[in-house]
């Protein structure tokens, strides 16, 4: 064997090891989803397959257990993700565009604020935000989950970076033709920003679908839970419905994995924005 072949083999072996480390939990989650829930809780997840105790029963309980609570969670997750993603992406594109193409007083301060807030973890603010949502009457509601994160600084930054590269001649030409500032944005610039929208929609949808800390605080009643909060409520020491635990987890991951299979590049370009290329 030449030196080159050995090198290639070693590289492939190393990468295979890490791919195995990354993928095997998915396999074991799938296997666990067919086993009786109390078995998992009692014995943990083991490497043995135990085909004789596996069945589709757990997937049936997703529809029946506690009058279909899992379907409620799923519906809440779908609706919250859709509304939040649409609103967040649209509003951030406005702000990012405004910061990129106009000169105005206070612009630099706002941009610095965006950069700083990108880094401030909301975990610090959960207590005052909780009190605020009681005051605003949005506790335990979709609005409560969505409103505080309706203009994510990361998305603003992303659109700003993208819009800086847009051709300003087009804007000037449209102004001479008498187009209003907003018509320029909606009719000319928005179509040009399509790739940025693609990447941000996917990234925001993933954040929103997986969001945990804030929904845990703001959602109070069982039927209003999103999937992560609902699943987390099953593992409490007083939890019941253990059969739903892994079947529910598997079904909750499926949409994101499908999205990833089709739109891999959007995931990656959305992620790499925060300062690496900026």
């Amino acid at each position: 064997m030449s030196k080159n072949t050995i090198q290639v083999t070693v590289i492939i072996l190393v990468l295979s090891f890490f791919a195995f480390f990354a993928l095997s939990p998915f396999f074991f989650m799938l296997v666990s989803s067919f086993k009786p829930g109390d078995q998992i809780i009692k014995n943990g997840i083991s490497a043995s397959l135990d085909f004789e105790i596996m069945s589709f029963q757990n997937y049936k309980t997703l529809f029946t257990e506690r009058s279909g609570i899992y379907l409620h969670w799923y519906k809440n997750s779908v609706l919250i993700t859709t509304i939040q993603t649409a609103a967040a992406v649209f509003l951030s594109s406005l702000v990012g565009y405004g910061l990129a193409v106009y000169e105005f007083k206070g612009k630099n301060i706002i941009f610095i604020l965006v950069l700083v807030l990108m880094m401030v973890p909301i975990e610090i603010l959960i207590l005052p935000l909780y009190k605020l949502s009681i005051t605003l009457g949005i506790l335990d509601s979709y609005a409560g989950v969505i409103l505080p994160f309706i203009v994510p600084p990361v998305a603003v930054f992303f659109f700003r970076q993208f819009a800086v590269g847009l051709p300003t001649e087009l804007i000037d030409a449209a102004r001479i033709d008498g187009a209003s500032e907003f018509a320029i944005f909606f009719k000319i610039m928005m179509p040009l920003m399509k790739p940025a929208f693609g990447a941000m929609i996917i990234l925001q949808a993933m954040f929103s679908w997986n969001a945990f800390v804030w929904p845990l605080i703001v959602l109070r009643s069982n039927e209003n839970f999103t999937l992560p909060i609902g699943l987390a409520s099953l593992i409490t020491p007083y939890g019941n419905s253990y059969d739903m635990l892994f079947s529910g987890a598997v079904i909750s991951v499926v949409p994101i994995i499908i999205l990833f299979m089709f739109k891999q590049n959007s995931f990656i370009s959305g992620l790499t924005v925060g300062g690496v290329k900026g």
Partner: protein
Amino acid sequence: MQILKNFYEKYINSKKVAPYIFVSPFIIVFLVFYLYPMISTIIMSFQEIGFGDPEFVGLANYKKLFNVHYKNALLTSTNYTFWTILILVPLPIILAVLLNSDKTKFTNFFRSSIFMPALTSVIVAGMFFRYAFGEQASTLANSIIGVFGLEPITWLQNSIPAMIALVVLCVWRWMGVNIIYFLSGLQSIPEEIYEAADIDGASSWDKFKYITIPSLKPVIIYVITISVFGGYKMFAESYAYWQTATPNDIGMTIVSYIYQTGFNNFNMGFASAIGITLLLIVLIVNVIQLNLFGLFKKGEQ
């Protein structure tokens, strides 16, 4: 109608006003959901908040910080941050270099596979690892250490194994993301530099040490910065493993402590004071990071 239209043309649609309308969503959200809560948490940290009216208590809440639980929380968060950075910077760099080499085959498959865990929510991932780190001899974690002749461990009830379980969960979910960051950094290094080094007879190691690492410096700083923030604000992972208070505060991070103090013990004033200390940590790191990056150069771009 005509008046309205004139008003619109003259003010709203003017180049002076339009920019403010574009940025207004951010300003509103900033004032309502960032600035106001920030101020109110500062005020609450000086108050005793019970069932009656809040009472001003000066620095009493901050004095309470000198207790063993806060020390444990700070230690757990710091250890977690330290270990995740120690693993999640060098290892992804090496893997990114391997993925970027033209000798490597199936690059897309490897990159996508290693990225897949990032798609899961902390709860789903946490559930898996919680039961994989179960205490029985037959669990995945115990069977793996069994191969090396070690006795089964009660992972989540002892502080060092618990830290290992937390770090493994983090490494599983973030490895792929950090690889993507480093890959995008690697791809922006001009090929000519390596060619020039080849002509000078540089070895692979020399090229890695003198070209790759220095060129990746901005990405490394960026990844370390977000890892510090990610580390100190960690909560969901700990919640997935333990939910509530544990004996000896195993796995309790600063944010878990805020959560327990605020929402389980209803001591909002003290919880706010803990929050402020976390805010200070984050701000200090932020200032260091912005200086390293040269924020003001960026603003002019």
